[in-house]
């Protein structure tokens, strides 16, 4: 019996070691970004894909975006808790809150079977931080990661360097510059806004907001207690998007709870949702609620100025 048990234990130990090794060969980019933090962070942002608007490369201080497309405030809290140890004293914690954020359930039941945003959290968060953690799902995701990494090893080996063309025949790689068609782009933004607002209003009232307000409170409370400086933010949206929500809906589902939290904890709240320096300019938007490269540059300039004005950043922090 002893020999049998010993062999079984040894076998599973070897398997576990091999599986662990392969599963750690590679991770999704967002996960790698979080796991590779090696310096104290002076500024971070949380949030959904709307958090992609932040770019800290213009700062001389160390910053990182920890947002995730499809994210919920529950996982914002878990992410914040996970990276807290890497935050510098009085680090700035930017919390962009999307219009629909208070109406989402923790694991986004509205997304149906696609729970890919939760899958990433299984890669680094402890089971206690994952809402309705499932060991079976954890194992299946680990297996999936192992398979992906294993195939990745061969895929990398297969990549061949392109053959160099003879010098004389080499063509200059000229990029064609497509002129910006304002009318067409504006029409696209409007069309997109109609669809997005219909969807976001629906998911924005999917569940009662108490839990989400609680998660946001928890982030703010903990940040303040730890000496960090939280800032609530509404990112800029294309005019058509923000307006289509309607004052009544926004006030009830968004503005009132945000304003109450800002007042209760005395934390700054910067609302760019209707900031006409950006929201009326289609050339800044990739789609109705996401900025393009040009928009991101412009937005971050304004943001840093506002943070300086609030006394959260100084001119020395700018690059």
């Amino acid at each position, binding site marked *: 019996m002893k*020999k*049998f048990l010993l*062999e079984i234990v040894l076998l599973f130990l070897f*398997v576990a070691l091999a*599986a662990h090794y392969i599963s750690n060969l590679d991770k999704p980019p967002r996960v790698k970004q979080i796991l590779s933090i090696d310096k104290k962070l002076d500024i971070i942002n949380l949030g959904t894909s709307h958090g992609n608007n932040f770019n800290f490369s213009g700062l001389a201080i160390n910053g990182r975006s920890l947002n995730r497309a499809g994210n919920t405030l529950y996982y914002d809290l878990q992410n914040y808790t996970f990276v807290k140890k890497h935050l510098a004293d009085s680090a700035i914690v930017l919390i962009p809150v999307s219009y629909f954020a208070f109406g989402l359930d923790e694991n986004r039941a509205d997304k149906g079977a696609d729970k890919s945003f939760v899958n990433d959290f299984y890669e680094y968060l402890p089971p206690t931080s994952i809402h309705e953690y499932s060991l*079976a799902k954890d194992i299946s995701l680990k297996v999936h990661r*192992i*398979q992906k990494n294993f195939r990745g090893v061969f895929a990398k080996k297969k990549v061949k360097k392109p053959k160099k063309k003879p010098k004389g025949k080499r063509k200059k790689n000229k990029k064609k510059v497509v002129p910006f068609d304002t009318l067409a782009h504006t029409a696209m933004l409007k069309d997109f806004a109609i669809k997005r607002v219909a969807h976001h209003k629906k998911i924005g009232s999917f569940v009662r907001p108490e839990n989400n307000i609680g998660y946001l409170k928890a982030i703010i409370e903990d940040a303040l207690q730890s000496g960090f400086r939280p800032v609530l933010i509404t990112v800029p949206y294309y005019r058509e998007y923000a307006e289509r929500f309607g004052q009544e809906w926004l006030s009830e589902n968004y503005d009132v709870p945000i304003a109450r939290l800002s007042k209760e904890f005395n934390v700054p709240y910067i609302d760019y949702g209707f900031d006409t320096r950006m929201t009326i300019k289609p050339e800044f938007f990739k789609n109705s609620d996401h900025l393009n490269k040009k928009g991101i540059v412009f937005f971050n300039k304004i943001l840093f100025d506002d943070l300086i004005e609030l006394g959260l950043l100084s001119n020395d922090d700018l690059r």
Partner: protein
Amino acid sequence: MLFNSLDFAIFLPVVFILYWFITNKSLKLQNLLIVIASYFFYGWWDWRFLSLILFSTLVDYSVGIALSKQSNEAKRLVLLWVSIVVNLGFLGFFKYYNFFLENFMTAFSFFGTEIKSNSLDIILPVGISFYTFQTLSYTIDIYKRRLEPTKDLIAFSAFVSFFPQLVAGPIERATALLPQFYKKRTFDYAKASDGARQIIWGLFKKMVIADNCAEYANQIFNNSADFNGSTLVLGAVFFTFQIYGDFSGYSDIAIGTSRIFGFDLKQNFAFPYFSRDIAEFWRRWHISLSTWFRDYLYIPLGGSRGSTWLKVRNTFVIFIVSGFWHGASWTFIAWGALNALYFLPLLLRKKNRVYLGPIATKYSFPSFKEGINMLITFILTVLAWVFFRAESIEHAATYLSGIFSGTLFDKPELLPWEIIILIVLFMSVEWFGRNGLYALDGLNKTNSSVLKITISFIVIIVTILYMSNTEQEFIYFQF
């Protein structure tokens, strides 16, 4: 509880520890543990159906004792029929009620009489076809005076509900399995170690071969009208390996698990796709069911004795009943009938027992003649599986006509090389292990623990690396 689930991965070690470390002092306690564990295992799906097993157990236990006390042949026959009616009654109700109802309604409407009747929304209890046949063998064997009835209700309950083979076989005879519950079991390292390896191999067959093939077989069969002939061939071939990996994989896990607990179950699959004719295929495929039908149906009907007409009748009866056992659908009946047609020429020419021994024992590869025979048998089997997998007879017919259309030799529209290579490697391992009870049985000849652990390690790693991400239920659970 599925064998390839996390639930079972927790359940098995817990039962193992309780069995060998807590209850090992008493045979009764060990048997009781098997009953409790088996009922827990079965109740994990739907605890309501435990009552069926319990009722079936009590009826057959009582009938067995009553049969041994009764010497009046007429009364003994009545007792036997009680057991048959109860067991087949359950099976008939849960599995075939709606089928017969719908077909009667169709038949009457054909003659112009409309009958209004409501079909019932019946859930088929998992594995009912397996355990009813197992308990039936008990009463039939006592009736035929081949077996003494047991007075030990716990041992009998354990025999009926033994969790490794409860839901998908092998269908064990009472004469072979029941006595094992009377004897004290002691832990046997070699047996347990081999059992663990057979479980690992079974999991590989199920999770890598069957589940990966299932993805493509489902895709092709569910959209068969959209694919060319060569892709349809590929779909049928994928299903051929899916059903083999699925069912023989289950049997391997069942046999392996039993061995860990000190039990021996019969071999259920003996490398059937290496068969050189259909008769040999049926001696190697689902052996426990084939021999059950042979002993309890075919031979009582007269078997291969008697006139040509009787031989033809008996062959069709056994194959059609076997097909119908798999499910209440005309596709299964057609599959059975087609196999009967394959088998009959061999029987009538008295060539059905040509290939009784192992394949190419002295050589690494089959002879040219053996190779050709294996290929023909394999092709016939693949074509028959089309009926087994199809949604209806019409679907099977259009699928086969699609295969034999002008696009048979076109390039397949789906060609998953990774799966094809895995199948080739799998069949190569099966080929080199064909003389054992399962593909890795040959490892028992070596004393090297390092080699055994290394092979197991490789199989587990390959399983993890290539297991399908879409978990499929075992096909035979529905039977």
